[in-house]
């Protein structure tokens, strides 16, 4: 703020001097001049603490002038009877210089520290990313290398059914890997801010349908229930991104809850937004983890259930980019609800179709 409005510091200097003067005038009847000088010292200290050197010195000089003019005899002039007040003036200016120098130093150090912390955070993310990639890609690569070398080197010795099974497992692992890579790329794009939203009117029911179609195979293990009211208004969103956010939630539900359990996709209309929920009735998380799982590379339960821990982070980043919220909460009776909101805008008009010729 200080850098953007350099004059703000000087304005505060004037305000501080005026305030000190007001307090000083009120004190004059009952207090010594020394105490009134202390009020001015306080003003200089405050300005020097919060602003740069220029405003601090300006405050000191203005304080000296005001103190001299209004309080030091002879009042109403800038002349000084007692030379010891010259010392008071010098001390005021010195205080302004020392404190503004100190705080400037502290501020510079804080900035350097913040930069260092940022670097450390970037480094931490990079390390986790590498660890995660090497863990999550190594297994599929091992399977693919093993299965494909078997096919290439001794395929003719295998029964047709075994060959097909090996080929299928290569395909499955390759798909898994390609999804991992896509997620890492997407997260990077979301974080670097290089992603531009292509907003367009979209139907959340249509997006939900596309997600269900795309994930049909993966969701086949669960009982999917839909609760989407007929009259949900259109939303202005980047449909491809929202589709991805929702897909990540559905995929998570299928991945992290026992087969055969219910996954419910629900859309509700609130006052000025819609709430999209993916509720599972087979998962559980300690309350403390409900927020943690939205961080990158965090998984609910350690490793075993697979996935890289990017799905929720991507979902939240996409929703935030749209100005919405994404969170998780426990459902009474067991289960977890993952929800996100999308803002509603005044719906566009679709001209009514002229009464059709087909009156029959």
């Amino acid at each position, binding site marked *: 703020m200080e850098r953007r409005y350099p004059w703000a510091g000087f304005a505060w200097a004037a305000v501080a001097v005026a305030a000190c003067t007001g307090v000083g005038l009120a004190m004059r009847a009952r207090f010594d001049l020394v105490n009134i000088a202390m009020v001015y010292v306080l003003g200089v200290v405050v300005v020097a603490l919060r602003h740069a050197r220029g405003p601090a010195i300006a405050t000191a000089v203005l304080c000296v002038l005001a103190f001299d003019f209004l309080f030091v005899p002879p009042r109403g002039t800038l002349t000084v009877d007692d030379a010891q007040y010259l010392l008071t003036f010098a001390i005021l200016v010195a205080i302004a210089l020392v404190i503004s120098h100190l705080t400037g130093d502290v501020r510079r150090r804080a900035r350097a520290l913040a930069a260092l912390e940022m670097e450390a955070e970037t480094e931490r993310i990079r390390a986790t990313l590498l660890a995660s990639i090497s863990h999550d890609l190594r297994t599929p690569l091992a399977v693919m290398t093993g299965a494909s070398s078997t096919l290439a080197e001794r395929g003719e010795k295998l029964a047709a059914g075994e060959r097909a099974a090996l080929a299928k497992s290569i*395909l499955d692992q*390759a*798909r898994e890997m*390609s999804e991992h890579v*896509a997620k890492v*790329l*997407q997260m990077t794009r979301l974080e670097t801010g290089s992603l531009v939203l*292509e907003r*367009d*009117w*979209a*139907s959340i*029911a*249509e*997006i*939900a*349908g*596309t997600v*269900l*179609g795309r994930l049909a195979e993966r969701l086949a293990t669960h009982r999917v229930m*839909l609760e*989407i009211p007929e009259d949900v208004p*259109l939303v202005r969103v*980047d*449909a*491809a991104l929202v*589709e991805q956010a929702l897909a990540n939630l559905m995929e998570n539900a299928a991945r992290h809850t026992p087969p055969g359990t219910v996954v419910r996709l629900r859309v509700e209309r609130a006052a000025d937004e819609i709430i999209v929920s993916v509720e599972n009735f087979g998962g559980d998380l300690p309350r403390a983890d409900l927020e943690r799982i939205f961080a990158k590379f965090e998984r609910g339960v350690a490793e075993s259930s697979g996935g890289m821990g990017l799905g929720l982070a991507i979902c939240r980043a996409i929703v935030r980019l749209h100005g919405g919220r994404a969170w998780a909460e426990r459902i009474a009776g067991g289960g977890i609800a993952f929800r996100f909101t999308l803002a509603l805008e005044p*719906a*566009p008009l*679709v001209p009514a*179709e002229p009464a*059709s*010729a*087909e009156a029959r």
Partner: protein
Amino acid sequence: MTGARSSILLVEDEPEIRRFLRATLAAEGYRVVESPSGRRGSIDAATHKPDLAIVDLGLPDFDGVEVIRRIREWSAMPILVLSARVHERSKIDALDAGADDYVTKPFAVGELLARIRAGLRHGVRRPGGGAVLELEDATVDLDRRKATRGGAEVHLTPIELRLLSALARHAGMVVTQRQLLTEVWGPTHAADTHYLRIYMKQLRDKLEKDPIRPRHLRTETGVGYRLVIGD
């Protein structure tokens, strides 16, 4: 399977991808001409006059979209795009330049073959013929403007019929939102995508067994719609 031995031009710079596509397409009975670059591909298209072209969007010499433009200058052959880019924009650019459909890398071969079949069908389609759509739960006779579902007649509005016809003309292939809006509502409404959301919902409600999970009237999010019949 395909008795006619259709020929396919494959413009792709990655030898490994060419290798497995060549094997797959040959096994399906297609004749394959391979071009490793955009320049070569544009020339091969003219000299071999294939029945269909598959063009990779990320070519080393010039953009696949440029290849599509060059082919479209003189030919209406069906063009399928292979796109490694996840971003919808490049697909739309290719479709606007005249490509008929796309497959995103990495793809499973089944998907590509389905697109090829749809493309070749489109290439030999006689205008006006076979305008009866047999859907899972309904039948639509586009010429006679009549739809039935479970024996009962279903009323389709003129706009719904036009929208369905526009999709049916490219059955099996993606039709971009812009294309649909221009064909059905006219060029001044090319950006009014909310019309499509409303009318596609109406069509699905009337014709699909499960309108939320449509089998025939599929959405290609951010790109357009696809009418899927059979396959």
